[in-house]
């Protein structure tokens, strides 16, 4: 009996102590930005849609079932980019870092879906999947305070030539500097990260086998894309196999 009571008190005390120290620790934090951001100094790249299996797209252009999942994912993903959702967002000056560290309320820059051209889902609700020109959206991970230098743009290269022609939206796969820096979830609630749509026009040669494609962020000295260990730092590789 006494033993149980003892441990009840003992563990109660430890739990209280744990809670207290955690509370003290949390008090030292700002709710806006994390204390340290050194572990993500350079952002990773990611694509949408993201197949469940390891970044490999398998679909039949004539079978809408086979790509419906990708299409829905894209539709859902682009939902937040709808003009109706961006009403509060402002138009910002292109080609320039949009520094608003002085401002108490951080504004989000508008990203017009039309910039994604044929991949915006407006012209082609199937994002090109039915035509053999599937769209893949490339996005860069949000990192608070990141200010890319130079003219960052996405460039994708297939492993083998002649199987696919790649179009970028916006042109050149450019990522406009006006979308940076990001100020964090609480300050920058409406922030939308810039997207680059990559349209893969698969040539008749390319339908028989897997096409390996690697996309990289280029043109910015402070965005790494060659880390030995991190295969997603500033780059992303995926495969596409389209059948007819």
């Amino acid at each position, binding site marked *: 009996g006494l033993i149980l009571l003892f441990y009840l008190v*003992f563990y109660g005390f430890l739990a209280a102590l744990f809670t207290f120290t955690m509370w003290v620790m949390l008090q030292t*934090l700002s709710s806006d930005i994390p204390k340290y951001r050194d572990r993500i100094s350079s952002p990773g790249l990611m694509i949408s849609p993201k197949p469940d299996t390891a970044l490999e797209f398998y679909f039949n252009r004539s079978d809408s079932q086979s790509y419906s999942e990708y299409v829905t994912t894209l539709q859902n993903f682009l939902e937040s980019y709808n003009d109706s959702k961006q009403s509060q967002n402002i138009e910002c000056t292109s080609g320039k870092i949009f520094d608003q560290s002085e401002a108490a309320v951080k504004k989000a820059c508008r990203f017009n879906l039309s910039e994604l051209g044929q991949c915006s889902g407006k012209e082609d609700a199937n994002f090109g999947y039915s035509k053999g020109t599937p769209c893949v959206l490339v996005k860069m991970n949000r990192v608070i305070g990141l200010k890319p230098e130079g003219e960052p743009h996405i460039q994708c290269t297939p492993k083998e030539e002649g199987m696919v022609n790649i179009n970028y939206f916006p042109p050149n796969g450019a990522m406009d500097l006006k979308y940076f820096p990001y100020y964090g979830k*609480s300050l920058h609630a409406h922030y939308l990260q810039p997207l680059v749509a990559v349209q893969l026009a698969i040539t008749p040669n390319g339908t028989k086998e897997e096409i390996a494609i690697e996309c990289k962020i280029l043109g910015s000295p402070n965005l790494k894309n060659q*880390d030995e260990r991190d*295969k997603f730092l500033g780059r*992303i590789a995926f495969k596409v196999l389209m059948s007819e």
Partner: protein
Amino acid sequence: SARAAEILARDGPNALTPPKATPEIVKFLKQMIGGFSILLWIGAAFSWISFGIQLAQGVDSAFDNLYLGVVLALVVILTGIFAYYQEAKSTNIMASFSKMIPQQALVLRDAEKKELPADQLVVGDIVEIKGGDRIPADIRLIFTQGCKVDNSSLTGESEPQSRSCEFTHENPLETRNIAFYSTTCVEGTATGIVINTGDRTIIGRIASLASGVGNEKTPIAIEIEHFVYLVAGVAISIGVLFFIISVSMRYKILDSIIFLIGIIVANVPEGLLATVTVSLSLTAKRMAKKNCLVKNLEAVETLGSTSIICSDKTGTLTQNRMTVAHLWFDNQIYSADTSEDQTTQPFDQSSPSWTALSKIVTLCNRAEFRPGQENLPIMKRVVVGDASETALLKFSEVILGDVMSIRAQNRKVAEIPFNSTNKFQLSIHETDDPHDKRFLLVMKGAPERILERCSTIMINGKEEPLDSEKAEAFQTAYMELGGMGERVLGFCHLYLPENEFPEGFQFDTDSMNFPTSNLCFVGLLSMIDPPRSTVPDAVSKCRSAGIKVIMVTGDHPITAKAIAKSVGIISATSETVEDIAKRLNIPVEQVNRREATAAVVNGMELKDMSSEQLDEILRNHTEIVFARTSPQQKLIIVEGCQRQGAVVAVTGDGVNDSPALKKADIGIAMGIAGSDAAKNAADMVLLDDNFASIVTGVEEGRLIFDNLKKTIAYTLTKNIAELCPFLIYIIASIPMPIGTITILFIDLGTDIIPSVALAYEKAESDIMNRRPRNKRKDRLVNQQLAVYSYLQIGIMQSVGAFVTYFTVYTEQGFLPSTLLGVRVDWESNAINDFEDSYGQQWTKYQRTYLQWTGYTAFFVSITIQQVADLIIRKTRRNSIFRQGLFRNKVIWVGIFSQIGIALILTYGLGHVTALNFTPLRFQYWFVAVPFAILIWVYDEIRKLLIRRYPGSWWDKNMYY
């Protein structure tokens, strides 16, 4: 010699087969599967299995499991090799001991005398031996000349036995015409026929008897086994429990197996058994410095748990040399100094009687120092002569100085040596006074025989007639000295009248043309083999340590009792049954045996006793002396003591002692006087043959038991801090807080030196004031220790480490709330935009790197808190401040090594991916410091309450 070769082929060489040694490979394999090794092998096997499965499934991280398996196997193999090496090292010390110089024997073969190696002897060979030789086999003597053999190693008889060709007894051990293998011929020569060789000799049979006596597990081996079972039990049950939990939480079987490995690795203190070995061997080294050479490492602790010591008398309790203890002249008894290194004698030497007595002692003595020892202390010099004469020679050398020149000044003109019929020794000398032309006749011998020949007695230098009153005084003194177990000699002299014996008189010792009666009695000297000066203190230490000291000797009961009294084995106030009978003047039978605390048991009585009677004696008497016992009876006594549940230490030197030494929980052989057989059978060798060394050994043994407790408590604590992460990882699905490899770095890296350092801890209180531990109740790892380490300090450590873990994650952007339940996504290779609490997105590798930072933080926190754990483990009851924070310097070496290794791992090897360490922000080293301080404070409070309220609920539950 062709025939000899034939017999040699039939009987084998004339050598004792050494006890069957376990093959080295078996010993090695035993180390490989003993203890926790089997658990770790299972862990390694699981790792490889899951590696195989994952490889087949094409999982990227499959190789992690391969490496983990390899590391686990390496850990087992390395610790196995280490333990094997340690054991081999301590066995080797002994191997050098038992190596014998090849013996030669002079054999008559093919009608010529040949020197042959003794192991070539066969039955029927005729061998010749002379004084100083070792008998090469059991031989029947066919020719002897003044042959005496020393059978002490075989039968325990300390006096040399004469040997002749006559058959005197049916029993081969008793008859005079047989000399035994491995005994020595002291003097004379003999020729004999070999009748037994090798293992068929008497000694060979005893040796095989000794190896037949089972070798029992040492107490510490039992304790460690108990501890291994306990930890393995905890590991397996938690492992299986969480295997079931994780399976029912719909984890994949493979993942569950990987969790199981983690739990096992976290639970098993990999480095502990090696640490225990090191601690034991450190103590063994320390004991060797104090003249206890330990053959078997585990025996180190056995000595500490000893509750009965059966000690020899001669050489162990005593100095093994006759020394003058008392003198009687001028009607008065004087005591002499009997210590080991006497340089003067303090008694009153002014009386002219003493001058006369000293002259007799000096002159009537045939013993001489071996030349060339002038620089040695007198007591250390080698003397040619028997024990009593040696004693007298040294005695007079100490008091008078150069005895040899005194003898030269008083030239000896005639001499009758001692013989057993007349029981005296006589010599006639010229005096050193040139004006005194008289001859001086001096005589010594059995006091009553000497007195018979005297008509006067010297009192204060004057001869007075020996009347009945003075004879009475002599009797009283003689009885008193004899009653002290001392060997008494009487001394008398006579100045021969000058007119009857003029200068140049020819004395004839055969016709005795000189007076041998009506002499003048001068005094008595009594001698004893005195106790070693350190022994009484050691015995009283044993007494306060609750250890019963039993004397087992072949000596006469009176001598045995006297020595027992003088060293305190029989205390001054206690009485034997006989003493009580004498005091109350009633027959022995009527004495209430319960009243007598002491007992002197004669070997003859012991022979007729049933084991129940022996048990009763051992139970009812606290102070026991066994006198006139044969070495065989020692075994019976040891078994009797063991029936009482005691841990018995036995000393012995003879070959015949070896069964008793084997049987005892710890057999202690004498390094100087001991035979090889005894040393082989023993667990420990006493280099200086001194009983006091045993007691220092006991002290060390007890200390190491306490310190091992501390080491284990220290080591077990952090296992919880290693285990909790796994459990919480499984249940709450947070990112893994600590890696398996990291755990191994704690267990085999930072923790090793500190846990060895605890072996250097001084005793908390006088451990020699405590009763010996109860084998059944006082476990090395008891419930309190496990509970306190696991459920209290261990949990505190875990809390501290988790605070650091959460701090690291939070400050990088993952609030604790976001971490719960993220495991699957967190570990998914496909998710490279994992969002943190601030909206940032992380790639898999960025998360993994953060996870390693978490490992490092967790590791550092455990290390920091282990520093506190190390400090609190210095004592179990006393405040650290009383023990002294800085007294044990090795602890600080341990602390610095711990922190040093952690620094190297974190900052030096932080970039080696395979080790999963990352350079850590400096402030994270201090997050756990408040918890470390809390551990210290809490433990001080625990100790305070234990001291303040002995016997209370707290004391019972919190004292380990």
